[in-house]
């Protein structure tokens, strides 16, 4: 039981990692990007190609992938999101869904249905573990992922709170027109925010490839997990995303021990139960955020 809880929490780190970009983009641009999962898978393929075919060391692959994906984020914002967001609330959903269809099938065309993994690029790390007192084993990779998630969330939080671009992003999220009055170019800020989002997506995609296998259509489940984690945690709150990821991870690990399909069923189930509870008792909606604020104040 303790083992499952530990593994569940660590798994939650991965979900927080994949969810934070979705949550970040939603809080800044009010857009839920349906291509989020496919983009993470695309990043994983990019790193895979660089490492397997170009034989680059992993850190170099990662840096190249981050740069490429950041530019892709900028372009996606400029060419697609910016334009479709002007057409109302519904169009971005449709255009990002179209984008995900293109990405998934293009990946399939290029790489076929074989599942891939980045495990060979990280050698021992994929199975190494530490033994904790009480006969508990924790994998080094899940711990690394969890720590990365915490560092990334903290970094985003600091960036939003203390840097110039962070302030501009918050101002734009609050009210783009008023932000424009004080000289903030909302289009540029959104493009930067999209680029940052895709950096987080690349990190998530890399870890997806390290901890599991992926194939061209892996994006859809990743999108669902990311969405579930960010909604459970209270959409738009970065630390809530971590809490949401952990709750999702715990539910899945416990579900998996009951039934082969339990992993997914328990995850979706917990998400719907929390959603339902929150809709019935609206006060609960702001609970995680309030608790965190109180915790931070104390």
């Amino acid at each position: 039981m303790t083992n499952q809880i530990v593994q569940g929490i660590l798994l939650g780190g991965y979900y927080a990692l994949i969810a934070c970009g979705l949550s970040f983009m939603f809080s800044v641009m009010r857009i839920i990007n349906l291509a989020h999962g496919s983009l993470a898978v695309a990043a994983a393929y990019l790193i895979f190609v660089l490492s397997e075919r170009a034989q680059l060391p992993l850190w170099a692959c990662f840096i190249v992938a981050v740069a490429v994906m950041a530019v892709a984020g900028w372009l996606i914002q400029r060419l697609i999101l910016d334009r479709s967001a002007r057409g109302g609330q519904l169009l971005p959903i449709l255009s990002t869904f179209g984008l995900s269809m293109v990405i998934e099938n293009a990946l399939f065309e290029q790489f076929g249905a074989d599942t891939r993994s980045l495990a060979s690029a990280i050698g021992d790390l994929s199975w190494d573990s530490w033994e904790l007192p009480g006969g508990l084993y924790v994998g080094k990779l899940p711990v690394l992922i969890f720590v990365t998630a915490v560092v990334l969330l903290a970094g985003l939080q600091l960036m939003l709170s203390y840097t110039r671009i962070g302030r501009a992003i918050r101002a734009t999220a609050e009210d783009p027109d008023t932000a424009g009055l004080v000289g903030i170019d909302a289009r540029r800020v959104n493009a930067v925010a999209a680029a940052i989002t895709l950096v987080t997506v690349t990190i998530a995609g890399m870890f997806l490839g390290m901890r599991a296998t992926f194939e061209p259509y892996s994006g859809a489940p990743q999108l669902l997990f990311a969405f579930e984690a960010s909604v459970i945690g209270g959409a738009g709150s970065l630390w809530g995303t971590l809490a949401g990821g952990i709750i999702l991870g715990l539910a899945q690990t416990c579900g998996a021990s009951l039934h082969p399909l339990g992993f997914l069923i328990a995850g979706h189930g917990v998400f719907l139960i929390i959603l339902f509870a929150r809709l019935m008792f609206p006060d609960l909606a702001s609970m995680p955020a309030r608790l965190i604020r109180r915790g931070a104040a104390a």
Partner: protein
Amino acid sequence: MSLVVSPSMVQRWTRLSRRAAAAVVIVLLGLAVLPGVLGAGAIDRLAALFVYVIMAAMWNALAGYGGLVSVGQQMFFGLGAYFTVRLAETGLDPFVAMGMASLLVAVVSYPLSLVMLRLKGGEFAIGMWVVSALTHLMVNLDGLIQGETGRSLISLNAYAPGARRDIIYWLALVAMTGLLGGLFALLRNRTGASIQAIRDNEEAAGSLGIDVTRTKRLIFVLAAFGIGVAGALWLASATTFQPKTYFSVQWTAYMIFMVLVGGIGRFEGAILGAVIFFLIETWFGALGVWYLIGLGVVALLFSLFMPLGLWGAIETRFGVSLMPVGYRLEIPPQSRKD
């Protein structure tokens, strides 16, 4: 010079739309006798076209009129097929089972609407997807279906292949006519005015005293029912139920494509979109993955550059409406002179 020569008139039917209505009746009658004329392959394909029209019209009702973009409508498609298999196992005639299964889908969708309609925009879109994924897993758990093994609609064997094909064709035709006719009638009465007001501006509609939630719930259940019918019909012509084929998000992708290309929120648009999708599938479906990439690119381009779709463009350009669900103001030429 008199101030007002003749008053302007509020019209629904124009000469063009009356002719269009007559043409629709003739086309439907023509379609009804086709099984005696065309070969088996063509009849199967036409039945598929009718299913596409149903799906496009239902997704359009939800998104175009209700303002509810769902990425989980494959759930109702899958449930329509699953319930049919389940009911047919009890010894029910397969065609009766199809009808009852569709009604069951509508019944199931009602409590779901109570929860899901509280979500907004993208949250509703992906929330529906999550529910669909969960439903898929639950169907996997059914001992009759055995995971992804699936189950066939064996009782269809009671019908000879030729008769079976014709019955499915006629059922699809009747279902399409009924659902489209029902939607058309709904959009033209008082509820329809509410629905279109909600589409244009939800808050404004609410402030006029329209019960937004009740109206949306009606569309939600209608769309679920219609897509359930589509799933049951698809199962009847494919005969085998395999969960992952029916609960695939691909179905929603097709619906989105048809409605985006045809014209979202336009009654004629969904039908046009379904016909275009059908033609593209017939001509390019064999290209496999490139065909899917092409669908994605076209959907993306339409959402960016032609968000009202082809019918929206035609309507704005020429001011025509074949299936009038709104009103139009006709100003006689002489009063313009004043």
